[in-house]
């Protein structure tokens, strides 16, 4: 639960994501998706409830929990005076990644920013900044990943690579939560979906389970249709 004074941003939200699963977090604007992700990543404290990351209680042992997670915000935040490569060096020291060069360079190659390694963030496009944030987040090989609108600002090839990257990491055993308004993307890469409305969960389960609930007997209902039907109903 997350409250701001009298306003409850997220309430009675409970779910679990297992290793290898990709959970799509969807909901209308202001539903509480970003607040949920920020609470899960330990950026803002939850007003109530419990968050467990890879077996570590986030409130009791935040350092151990954070060692296992990575958060990718929708707006890339970078240090103005560090180059791309220096960002990786900084993160490596923070997370104690000894061989960061052997991990970091392939990541830069994977996200096609290796040629920008000595550039400052001010010289990068928004998409490149986003890629750098993702590369930094993946440097310590997190087991739990939270993506908040990860495809914003990426070009079509970048989107394709990002999708592949997420799926590959899930297959390698990472638990992933992904918030996005791009429902066709979620349909492609998510194994599960959770629909939020006005800070409350209105549906969750595998894609098939949620689709079945809102299909009204129709076959092949898209996630977009499910979303519209689900969010059209009053929140419980």
């Amino acid at each position, binding site marked *: 639960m997350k409250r701001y*004074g009298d306003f409850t941003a997220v309430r009675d939200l409970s779910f679990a994501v297992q290793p290898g699963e990709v959970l799509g977090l969807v909901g209308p604007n202001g539903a509480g998706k970003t607040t949920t992700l920020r609470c899960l990543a330990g*950026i*803002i404290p939850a007003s109530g409830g419990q968050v467990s990351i890879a077996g570590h209680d986030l409130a009791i042992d935040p350092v151990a929990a*954070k060692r296992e997670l990575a958060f990718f915000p929708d707006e890339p935040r970078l240090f*103005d*005076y560090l180059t791309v490569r220096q960002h990786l060096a900084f993160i490596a*020291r*923070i*997370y104690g990644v000894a061989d960061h060069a052997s991990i970091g360079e392939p990541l830069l190659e994977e996200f096609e920013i290796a040629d920008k390694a000595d550039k*400052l963030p001010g010289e990068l496009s928004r998409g490149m900044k986003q890629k750098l944030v993702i590369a930094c987040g993946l440097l310590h090989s997190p087991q739990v990943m939270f993506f908040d609108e990860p495809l914003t600002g990426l070009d079509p090839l970048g989107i394709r690579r990002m999708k592949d990257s997420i799926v590959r990491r899930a297959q390698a055993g990472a638990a992933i939560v992904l918030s996005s308004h791009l429902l066709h993307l979620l349909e492609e890469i998510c194994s599960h979906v959770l629909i939020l409305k006005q800070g409350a969960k209105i549906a969750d389960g595998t894609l098939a389970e949620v689709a079945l609930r809102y299909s009204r007997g129709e076959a092949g209902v898209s996630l977009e249709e499910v979303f519209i039907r689900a969010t059209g109903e009053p929140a419980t």
Partner: protein
Amino acid sequence: MLGALLYLRVRSLQNLLLSRTRRLREPKYLIGAIGTVFYFYYFVFRRLTAAHNAFGGRGGNPFVLGGSVLILVLSIGYAAAAWIFPSAKGGLRFAPAEIAFLFPAPLTRRELVHFSLAGTQMKLLFSSLLLALFWGRPPFTAAAMLQHVAGWWILLATAEFHRTAANLIFARHRERGDDLASRRILAAGIVALFVAAVGAALWRAAPVWPAPAGAATLQVWASFLNRLVNSGPPSWLLLPFRLAAGPFLAEGGRAFGAALPPALLILAAHYAWIVRLDVSFAEGSISLAEKRAQRVAALQAGASPFASVSLRPRREPFRLSPQGRPEGAFLWKNLFSVSGAVNWRFLFFVGMAVLPVVAVFSVLLTGSARHSGINPLGIIVAGGSSILGAYVLLLGPQLARQDLRSDLANVDLLKTYPLPGWQVVLGEMLAPIAILSGLLWVLLLAASWGFSASHVGDIPGPARLAATLGAACLVPPVCALELLVPNAMMLLFPAWHQATRSRGGIDTIGQRMIFTFGQLISVVILLLPSVLAVPVLIFATAWLIGPVGAVLVATVAALVIIGFELLCGIWWLGQRFERLDLSAELRP
């Protein structure tokens, strides 16, 4: 058009006040607001009811007399800077939202110019009101206050219009592909000639220079300079500046009435000049707005106001190993920004603030030294270093902001790191501690040499060396203690911290003063135990273990006390950092 402008300003102000008022529901902001009200009442409004003046009226006040000369000097400096250092963008001021809505709107170029200039006037008027309140002069009657506000506004508006015109003219040259450097050199040459002419005229006009000694030195000098610039050839050379500053400098209603028409004429001429300048300002305005948005974002994030936005990678301060304490990574990261903060602009402002004080004290000290047989060079070095050291101690923590304050925008990122809060706080503070300590060590060394060379006092060499070493040991923890306070304030009042960094005007001056005052008080309280302990210990042990041993014992004691305070402070700030919920704090 004007109706739309008025609607925009009034509604924006209304909503701003509303959101600030809502925040007062939180006790810590309510207490802060009460502090602001008290400050304004005690230091500003209370004066308005007290019709007396310590100097017995304007005629004898050296600060008012000197201020008149200072205003002329500043006006000349501002006008000169406008032509020698014109804006690289050359546009009119528009907010990003104004650009988005007004540039595609069916408005003429002239209407946009009017919109920009009129919008600037509202801000200037508000600034004038505050300047009149803070730096107004007696008598503090309603009519006089009105005059002061009008005087400030005419002065500021004329300066702003002059700068805008210079920028637009340079923008036109840029459009034509002219060589801008040669034009700036030409401008600098004209300024130099003008300054030389004024200097020569002043020199020739000066009958007898007053003796720089005695209790009334300031008053004598201020009156002398004031008479000098207002008579003979200097008065003619300075005429445009004197006319623009006329209403500001006028004494009494009659003089104000006489000074108003020529000043308004100059202002109107500047306005017409800008409106008639046929220069495309759209691109420049967009660049200006972007730059301003970047600067506001940087300021909100806590960066130094002097920091430049550069796209050139900087040299690594040291090689960062992937293994080791994470605090080292913060030190490494934050030291990158130092070369951006220490630029020519920064050095210019520091020089403007420090050099006059050092110069005045040097003159006074040299005069005194000659009479008492003390080595003047030694005393100047010692005095200058001590004054600079005091500046660094006083202002350093406000200027060296390569800590949590410059990472406010990245708090979300920092909170995802697998580190306890105290480690983040400590790591963030290391860079400014290193910077300030380095500076203070150099000054300490210079002061020590200066005192030694000047033969002031009768302190034996070993004792002086011990005192210097002791002070050098105490420098980093004292700097850390000083830096704890602004970082604590940032963590306790993030919304206030951001508000005071986001608005360039002086309307947040009260909040800043509360911060500065709070910092001073807090540092004094934190240093008090060590300050009391050091002399007591030296006095109590010197007879037993000698002065050198006593100084060392006192140093160790002070280190223990300050170290304990630091440990507690950093641990507490770490707890606060872990609990910080910026999204809740910054909600309007």
